[in-house]
């Protein structure tokens, strides 16, 4: 009998705790549904329709997606993102890893200050970053062209259609290398020293220790930075949108998929097609991020 009472009391506290937990998550869940899931599904829904001059909005099935798959402007913008993923992301993460390892090795003079300087661009709004670099690249009063001029070399046009992709990549690297460095550095700091004391006794050098102990240990943090960089590359908008006003022909209407979706929705007023592009973009990002995580997940299972 007393056991029954105890059990009931336990059930009551359990229920009380469950109610408390639900109340704790309720605000987030409501916002999550309203601001994330509803727009997501709404954009999926919109993408299945098209608006015609005659007949208004009609169901079009996968028409918008077929159109996107054969739209040279959209495909070119995806191609530019692919180049960014292949060139800019490895350079940026390579730099971030190098900075993190160098600072963690304790062999750099004034490393605390260096770390802050490299991180600071992250706190600069993307708009200001793009604006600044736009002026720096420019021929009016940009110090880059001033320097080329001073030594008598031909001044490169960093805002021409040949070089603009590299110029945009440089802005992203400048802005986000430090953020990634901080994530990697924090992970390095958490490795217990014992892990490489033994290696040091065995006479392993700094490079050896970095390569065989430090880098494998911070793999989860590396994957995190990689996924964030992939998402960021697909989202590219601010930089091309700002550079458009000083280099309209080099940027064009569809420099990045996002800029294209924006122009389709707000300049050309083709909302349904824009929704399809946005939805497709989200889908591609989820697949790419998932594929990137796969080897890691498999490796952890084996261990």
């Amino acid at each position: 009998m007393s056991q029954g009472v105890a059990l009931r009391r336990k059930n009551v506290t359990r229920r009380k705790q469950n109610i408390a937990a639900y109340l704790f998550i309720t605000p987030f869940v409501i916002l999550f549904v309203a601001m994330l899931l509803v727009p997501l599904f709404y954009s999926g829904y919109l993408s299945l329709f098209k608006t015609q001059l005659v007949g208004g909005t009609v169901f079009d099935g996968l028409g918008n997606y077929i159109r996107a798959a054969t739209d040279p402007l959209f495909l070119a913008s995806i191609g530019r993102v692919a180049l960014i993923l292949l060139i800019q992301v490895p350079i940026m993460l390579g730099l971030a890893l190098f900075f993190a390892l160098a600072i963690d090795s304790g062999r750099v003079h004034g490393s605390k200050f260096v770390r802050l300087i490299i991180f600071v661009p992250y706190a600069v709004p993307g708009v200001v970053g793009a604006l600044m670099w736009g002026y720096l690249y420019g021929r009016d009063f940009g110090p880059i062209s001033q320097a080329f001029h001073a030594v008598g070399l031909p001044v490169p046009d960093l805002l021409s259609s040949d070089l603009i992709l590299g110029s945009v990549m440089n802005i992203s690297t400048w802005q986000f290398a430090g953020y990634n460095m901080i994530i990697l550095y924090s992970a390095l700091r958490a490795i217990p020293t014992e892990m490489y004391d033994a290696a040091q006794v065995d006479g392993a050098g700094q490079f050896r220790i970095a390569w065989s102990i430090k880098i494998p240990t911070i793999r989860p943090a590396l994957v995190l930075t990689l996924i964030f960089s992939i998402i960021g590359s697909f989202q590219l908008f601010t930089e091309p949108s700002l550079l458009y006003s000083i280099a309209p022909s080099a940027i064009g209407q569809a420099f990045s998929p996002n800029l294209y979706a924006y122009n389709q929705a707000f300049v050309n007023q083709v909302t349904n097609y824009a929704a399809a592009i946005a939805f497709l973009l989200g889908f591609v990002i989820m697949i790419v991020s998932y594929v990137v995580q796969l080897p890691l997940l498999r490796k952890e299972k084996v261990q």
Partner: protein
Amino acid sequence: MRKPFNDEKQRSSILSIALWACAAYFALPLVWLFISSTKDTGDLFATFGLWFGSTFHLFQNIGDVLSYQDGIFVRWTVNTAFYAGVSAVGAALVATAAGYAFAKYQFPGSRAVISVILGAIMIPSTALAIPTYLLFSSAQLTNTPLAIILPSLVSPFGVFLMMVYASSAVPKELIESGRIDGAGEFQIFWRVALRLLGPGIVTVFLFALVHTWNNYLLPLIMFSDGRLYPITVGLALWQSQGASGGYSEDLFSVVITGSFISVLPLIIAFLYLQRYWQTGLATGGLKG
């Protein structure tokens, strides 16, 4: 956690020089921005970009920015601080409560909800901007501060970070002893857990602050009324007006000095709070 630095290790001059050279690359654009803010328009075009001009024009330039177009820049600054401040406080509170619950309670359905939220980290916020705009415009929420604040309150990564952080920062025994003392679940959260979650909360707050402060696409879409603009959209507008040549060259120094003013608050916030966010970020990166 570990290690005070091992001081016997020798410093390497080659490595130091390499790193300082890289640091110079990261610093130079901002140095240029500062130097350019001190020049008048003549010097801006006539003198070398990385050194000061013949006059120190910074304060006149700041005055020009603040009074340009009837002082709209001040209004944009206030808007930005308001949108970002409200969003960041809200996002941090909401994410903290949810992350704490996921870390410390086992309730029916928690695993399913967590996996949906974690999956949502991958959803790019910009892909949501267009449908959100359409929904808001039919609810007549565009051209109101809510148009930018509401979407900024949701941070799945913030919940993830708080979940990881709370699971190690708040010991189970502390919660249990609170219960034995007869404290309710909310009292335990307010009185015990929140204090221990400090660095995590500051991290989520700071990153939500940066996200909203620096956001460009969402306010660009949501606001057609220039008096509601945040600094980012305002500066972009001035820049495009300057570039299209409709304005005199004076607009260049207005845009440059305005940019300089707008980067200061966040840099100061990051420097001032660095101890907190570095701890907080370490948690996210560790278990990510």
